[in-house]
């Protein structure tokens, strides 16, 4: 008795040749990976000031060039004193949020009063990002982590889909790297500069950067969130901020786009 069901009712091997069983052993087709992001968030910008770090990111989720979602929150509070800002693919952002939530839950198990700080969360995220790029299946994001060091000084770090990491007193992802960084470096270029910048000054520059980005970045929104991590361990989330004092008069003179004839 042949116990292999696929052989039952088959023509005899000695007459018709071996049964081609390759079809049974085939896998589930080629493995697919994210090759391009779909819903995306644009720049996240951040700078240090004398009493902490300030970040901003707009609330847009773009579907290609379509402004698909206008209520996306891309600045995430992680624990009590860290904020993670995520640009790039929205579904990968949601996955990163799940990872961070699990990380914090695990951190809470011992109930010993110790908690992960920004550098630890940054280290974790950078390993995740590098690990995924090494599988040629990257999480399509550029991430800023802001918070406090163990010694109480401000922390700000960048990590992207390639696993590239760096730290600087003013950082921006995406288009912001070209438009916002020069503006932020005007007042905070070196690490030491941050000590001479107040929260109000930093806020002014951040608001200005978000306005410039809205003017020039076609995937941006004039509604954004500003998060402030202060060294006393406070995280303030200022939501639904709008760009102020914009002037679009110049738009009338633009030719070559849209429906105008001349």
């Amino acid at each position, binding site marked *: 008795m042949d116990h292999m069901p696929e052989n039952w009712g088959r023509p005899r091997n000695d007459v018709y040749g071996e049964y081609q069983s390759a079809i049974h052993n085939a896998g589930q087709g080629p493995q697919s990976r994210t090759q391009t992001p779909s819903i995306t968030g644009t720049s996240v910008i951040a700078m240090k000031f004398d009493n902490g770090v300030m970040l901003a990111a707009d609330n847009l989720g773009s579907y290609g060039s379509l402004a698909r979602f206008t209520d996306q929150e891309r600045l995430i509070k992680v624990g009590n004193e860290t904020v993670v800002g995520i640009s790039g693919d929205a579904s990968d952002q*949601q996955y990163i949020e*799940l990872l961070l*939530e*699990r990380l914090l*839950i695990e951190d*809470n*198990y011992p*109930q010993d009063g110790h908690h992960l700080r920004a550098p630890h969360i940054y280290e974790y995220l950078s390993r995740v990002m590098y690990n995924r790029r090494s599988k040629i299946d990257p999480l399509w994001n550029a991430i800023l982590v802001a918070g406090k060091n163990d010694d109480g000084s401000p922390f700000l770090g960048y990590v992207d889909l390639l696993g590239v990491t760096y730290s600087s007193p003013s950082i921006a992802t995406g288009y912001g790297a070209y438009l916002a960084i020069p503006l932020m470096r005007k007042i905070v270029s070196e690490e030491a500069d941050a000590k001479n910048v107040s929260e109000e000054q930093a806020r002014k520059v951040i608001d200005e950067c978000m306005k410039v980005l809205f003017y020039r970045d076609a995937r941006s929104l004039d509604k954004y969130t500003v998060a402030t991590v202060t060294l006393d361990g406070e995280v303030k989330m200022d939501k639904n901020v709008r760009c102020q004092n914009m002037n679009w008069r110049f738009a009338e003179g633009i030719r070559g786009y849209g429906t105008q004839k001349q």
Partner: protein
Amino acid sequence: MTSIGTGYDLSNSVFSPDGRNFQVEYASKAVEADGTAIGIRCADGVVFAVEKIVSSKLLVPGANKKIQTIDRHVGVAYSGLTPDGRHLVDRGRSESYSWRGTYKVPISVPTLADRLSGYVQAYTCYSSVRPFGVSVIVGGVDDSGPHLYTIEPSGAFWGYMGAATGKGRQAAKSELEKLDLPNISARDAVKAAAKIIYVAHDDSKDKDFELEISWVSTSETGGLHQFVPKELLEEAERLAKADDDDEDDDDEMDED
């Protein structure tokens, strides 16, 4: 227990002719030998308290906690074999971890209690394993409010407004019945819990014990399971001690 020695208690999952599973009953004995653990369901949360017997003066204070966190919103307290409790907590953590991975929301407390009890029950069904030597009080706050359950070594799980296991469970249960459940506030429940543990504690058998109290409450902890703040624990313990001493004095006077 006249049936002892008849051979029906030698293997797990075997019924005796009168319908008992002795290994499970013996596991319950291990629970009854350990310090009292209680849970109180209050207006907007759950309070846990444990009488942790300190077996040696050389132990580090606060070590070997018997209240643990399973997820942000779920805590457990147990009486019985500590390592068995640890293992069940690990299981609970991985259940709530995988739930989060699948559904992207926190696991509800009834679901978690159901799954844990199923796990405990499986350990009563095979001769290659022994039942859990713990009674676990599982509680927390979720979308549908506060929940409190006890999982027994048999795998049975019951919902309670006030739950008690361990050595002093009888005394603790009669004290719990006097409370205004489930309308008591979380803060009052903490103080009541401390008193109950002191009442349930038997000075003549065990000298030293550590009082552990934790809570999950919408108003007090924002729905997170945490140990109560040091000041509150100290205040609750002070009130409980004062109360306990009064009663002792009363007893002495009665004797006179």
